[in-house]
């Protein structure tokens, strides 16, 4: 037995809502996280090139905030 028109409409609506929720969720939660990961990977690659290839070393920096 086929779906009624209102059944088809409901299914379409549910799919649309799911898609909208997923899109918003990706834009607000996942996208910054994913692009953040990509950015960190890019920075890390540059860091490896800078520090390793140029023979630079890391020396721990001083902080003052915790001394408040």
């Amino acid at each position, binding site marked *: 037995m086929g779906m009624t028109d209102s059944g088809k409409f409901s299914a379409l609506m549910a799919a649309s809502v799911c898609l909208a929720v997923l899109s918003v969720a990706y834009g607000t939660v996942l996208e910054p996280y994913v692009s953040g990961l990509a950015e960190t990977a890019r920075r890390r690659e540059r860091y490896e090139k800078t520090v390793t290839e140029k023979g*630079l070393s890391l020396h721990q920096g*001083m902080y003052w905030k915790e001394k408040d």
Partner: protein
Amino acid sequence: MAGDVQCDLCPTECVLGNYQVGGCRTRINKDGVLYSLVYGKPCAVAVDPIEKKPFFHFLPATSAFSIATAGCVLSCKFCQNWQISQASPDEVDAQDLPPADVVRQALYYRCRSITYTYTEPTVFYEYMYDTAQIARKYGIRNTMHSCGYIKEKPLRRLAKLLDAADIDLKAFTEDFYGRICGGRLKPVLDALVVLRQENVWLEITNLVVPGLNDDPKQIGEMCRWIVKELGPDVPVHFSRFHPQYKLKDLPPTPLATLKEAHQIARDAGIRYPYLGNIRSEAESTFCHKCRLLLIERIGYFVKQNNIVKGKCRSCGVAIPGVWS
């Protein structure tokens, strides 16, 4: 994922994500810990006359062992050392020179002082601090030429090891600092007051850039602030601008403009105004009381010195400065 780190060394207060480098190009957040990329890696090392810094009231006619690393906390469009100050540590040729070796070389070249200079010493704070500690033990004085763009706590801590500081007061408006230097004026003024409070011998350099910070009213305002907040004995060097970096389209500062700034400073009550980057009588020191020629300079060369035990040879008045 490692967290962000906020650098609290300079007033820019960069918040750095993992593996992100600060605006100074020299400090990096790696896995939630802040590191310096330039510790023990100077890209400029030289033995200079102390007059070149410029210090005119601090151990005249002595040599200063001078070091700098890449990087700067500001981005002045007129920077005279932009090739290294606006470069990342990986873009310059640096050598390995740990703090103990800096002091060893300073002793070898009979330098009375070590100067942290050329770029901005704030960016190599840890390197400067450790070197200064060792230098103290060997009786070598520590001086810096800085833009004064540093927060109070690190500056007070450093000041305990500093004997003298020459601070670039680039202009007396927030607009100039924002548009031309990428910073703010207020923190620099605060740093000057802190250095004075900490009894660090202080001299000020003002690079006069035609059309940008040569307004006589502004220069007068700056000089009056110096006299009021720091006292009349702080030497002020008005330096001649030469077209550089991003301001190549401007002319060099006319001598008349510099002479006017010199007179404005004198009228405001500054006892020791000087002109720099240009040969003139105003690069010599005269007694503020009897006007005797105390230190005659030709460029960085001291031709005669009439200061005896810190006093004018003629009238005996104490001359502000560090003379021995």
